[in-house]
């Protein structure tokens, strides 16, 4: 329909540009010619090995998860409703984390604010303005006495929570982690003393909070790392990370080694989360699927997808028993999956923009979802058929 367009540059300019382009091409060709063969053969070797690895993994694949799950009872209808909406952020909420006391939470937003809420009473307990916008990651310390946050400032800082209303929390902020690109995720380990971070610079790192010293760094991703989660295992020594290279890697915290790697997603992995027993983990990706990986079998054992689910999943979390997987999507919905049977149990609507984070509370009583619509919503299940005190309060 549109006719061919003329460029505005003159003939001479075009000629000069062409000569430059050809020269660059010739030079690179000259240097590449010799190494191109090796690159090709390396690529072939890598692909052959990957195929062999798949075959090895499949050898012990004698049954599928949904087949084994046939003997499990079908889930009764879930009735999950949102009953608390936390309003206060001025812009997209990018991250949230529950406190171990099961009712408090910390959330961070694009407006540079980090807020600590008592979600039960809807009280805002602390509000810390940060100099950078896009605070992509936040975490509550296990003791409940501090929070960590970071984002586009390439740092992750720890802020001790003081109850003195006059104290300026922002002033007590301490930079702990320093990356060369944005910080996408952070988590305290078993104590307030160590912080694990993931970054857009393609690495994860373990830091000593007190001194800010780098204790261990984890290299292996070939693109931005978007998420990490610590393993709830007995020896407590591993964590999993997922990133834009479509890989999910399991790391040994002590040695820095990449001990296992999974590459079956077709697009960026936005979130990784361990199954409560620590023997598996789930991942949420831009390819609109969530996947379940078994660490002992060393392979992907389930894919949670549906033709009508078109938009990427940005976050996921398990219910306490691990039977349900809550996943937040970029089409503003939260799909709830039956982890064992592979079917979708229900879908939750309500947010008016992307869901950036879903987290089940530490005792499994409630689910919090944070969204780009600048709210956080707390939902819970009414599906037990028991008699509770029905309270019709403000929503």
């Amino acid at each position, binding site marked *: 329909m549109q006719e061919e367009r003329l460029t505005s540059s003159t003939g001479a300019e075009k000629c000069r540009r062409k000569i430059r382009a050809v020269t660059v091409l010739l030079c690179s060709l000259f240097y590449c010619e010799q190494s191109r063969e090796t*690159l090709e053969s390396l690529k072939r070797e890598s692909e052959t090995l990957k195929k062999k690895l798949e075959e090895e993994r499949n050898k012990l694949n004698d049954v599928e998860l949904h087949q084994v799950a046939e003997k499990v009872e079908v889930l009764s209808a879930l009735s999950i409703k949102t009953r608390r909406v936390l309003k206060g952020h001025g812009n997209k909420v990018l991250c949230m984390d529950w406190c171990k006391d099961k009712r408090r939470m910390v959330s961070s937003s694009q407006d540079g604010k980090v807020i600590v809420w008592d979600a039960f009473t809807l009280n805002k307990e602390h509000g810390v303005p940060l100099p950078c916008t896009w605070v992509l990651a936040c975490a509550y310390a296990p003791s409940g006495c501090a929070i960590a946050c970071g984002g586009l400032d390439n740092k992750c800082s720890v802020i001790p929570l003081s109850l003195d209303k006059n104290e300026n929390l922002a002033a007590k902020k301490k930079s702990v982690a320093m990356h060369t690109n944005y910080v996408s995720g952070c988590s305290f380990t078993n104590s307030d003393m160590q912080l694990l971070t993931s970054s857009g610079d393609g690495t994860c790192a373990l830091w*000593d909070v007190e001194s800010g010293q780098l204790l261990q760094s984890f290299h292996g991703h070939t693109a931005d790392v978007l998420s990490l989660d610590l393993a709830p295992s007995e020896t407590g020594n591993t964590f999993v990370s997922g990133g834009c290279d479509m890989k999910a890697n399991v790391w040994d915290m002590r040695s820095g080694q990449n001990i296992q790697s999974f590459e079956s997603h077709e697009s960026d992995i936005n979130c990784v989360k361990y199954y409560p027993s620590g*023997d598996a983990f789930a991942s949420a990706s831009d390819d609109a699927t969530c996947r379940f990986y078994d660490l002992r079998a060393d392979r992907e*054992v389930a894919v949670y997808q549906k033709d009508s689910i078109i938009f*990427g999943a940005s976050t996921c979390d398990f219910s306490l028993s691990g039977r349900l997987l809550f996943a937040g999507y970029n089409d503003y919905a939260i799909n709830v999956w039956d982890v064992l049977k592979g079917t979708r149990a229900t879908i939750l609507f309500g947010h008016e923009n992307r869901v950036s984070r879903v987290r089940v509370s530490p005792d499994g009583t409630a689910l919090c979802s944070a969204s780009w619509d600048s709210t956080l919503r707390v939902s819970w299940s*009414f599906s037990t058929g028991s008699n509770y005190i*029905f309270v019709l309060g403000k929503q």
Partner: protein
Amino acid sequence: MTINTLAKGGCHREQMACFRKMEKVIVAMQDPDMGMKMRNQRLLITVIPHAMTGHDIIAWLTHKYRISEEESLHLGNMLVKYGYIYPLKEPRCLVLRPDESPYRFQTPYFWTSTRWPASELDYAIYLAKKNIRKQGELMEYEKERYSLLHKRINHTWDFVVMQAREQLRASKQRRKADRIVLECQEQAYWLINRPPVRSITLYCIQLYCNSDYYKREIEACRKALGRNRVKSSICLEGFLKYSEQYLNHDPIMQGCLPSNPWISDDTAHWTMNAEIVPVPTRLRVERWSFSFMELLNDAMGRREFMTYLEKEFSAENLYFWQACEDIRHGESSKIVEKVEDIYKNFLAPGAARWVNIDSKTMDKTLEGIKRPHRFVMDDAQMHIYFLMKKDSYPRYLKSDLYKNMLAKAIVPQETKKSVFPFMRRQRHSSPSPAQTATQAAEEEGLAKGAGANSAAGSHF
């Protein structure tokens, strides 16, 4: 999707995958056999074919994907929002209405993915056409952009106006119905790609595959090939067992007693399950039997286990394990001091709480202590952990101490439905953990307790 706006030849990678999926849906909708039924739209005397109602769209989606109407409406709205279907009645309102409102499919020429990225030049030509066709037809935001473009690409402005005039002339020679359709399609395209309010766009960086990358991949594959794997049938059973075991403990699945605090506004459930209570709940005590880790992770469970070990004269194992945890998760600055304490109390010959480790591990540990670091106690700690897990823990579960605990544990009464269902319960605030911790620290400072107390406990 990343926040990185340094688009190194970046394409809208995240969006592209979604576009392809939406296009699959659209193609299926237009299938001659199984697709949507089309109607004609009447505009005064002109009849325009290939229109459909919002209601039909939803019915088709519901049927095809076997989803609820609410979800079809949601999905259909996305198709409209991204420009694959556009409304004929109110073109600026990009919403799918579940009624008789007419919609039409956007031609693939104008799909966002086909013409990615929407060019400034095209937009300028479009606005120029609108301007020439009827003076003052541009909206406020379009006028602003038009003048901005006029400044920015001034050098090609003659071309822009010439193109606009040519296109208008060509369209005059079309049939009225075709002309209207084309205008609608073009308008819909620009409403999507140059909306009144700009939304943030995110780009991804490309993967650079050079020889280093492949070498690393090859090494990782070789290592992975040598891995020990477990048969699927065994692993997968594990998940079934776990979910079944924890089913009663999962409030989202089975509720909780006496009531879910979020539903009833009554915090009794949290009070009854606080870190230290006079009598724990039955579910909690049962959980200690699920795994050794569950017992140790619960402060009361750990305390009970310690009492049991004291009776068995093997409490030093648990004290040792706790002290090792403290090193692993504590401050870097205190490592040396803590390692020395452990040696004095647990490893030195004749120590007060000497732990029984095999000689190989003992030698290795003693050697490592000469240059203490965070993980120097790992081997010894693991040895003692598995010793307790294999030996003391199973015996504890069979002991009278545990059985009595289980017997006298509370099973909370389910809260009955209130007589006054509309009475709102007061939601009480709780002391912030930060506050309790400060108070506790003060008290501890006063009492000045020394010893191997775990510093990283949580107190709820």
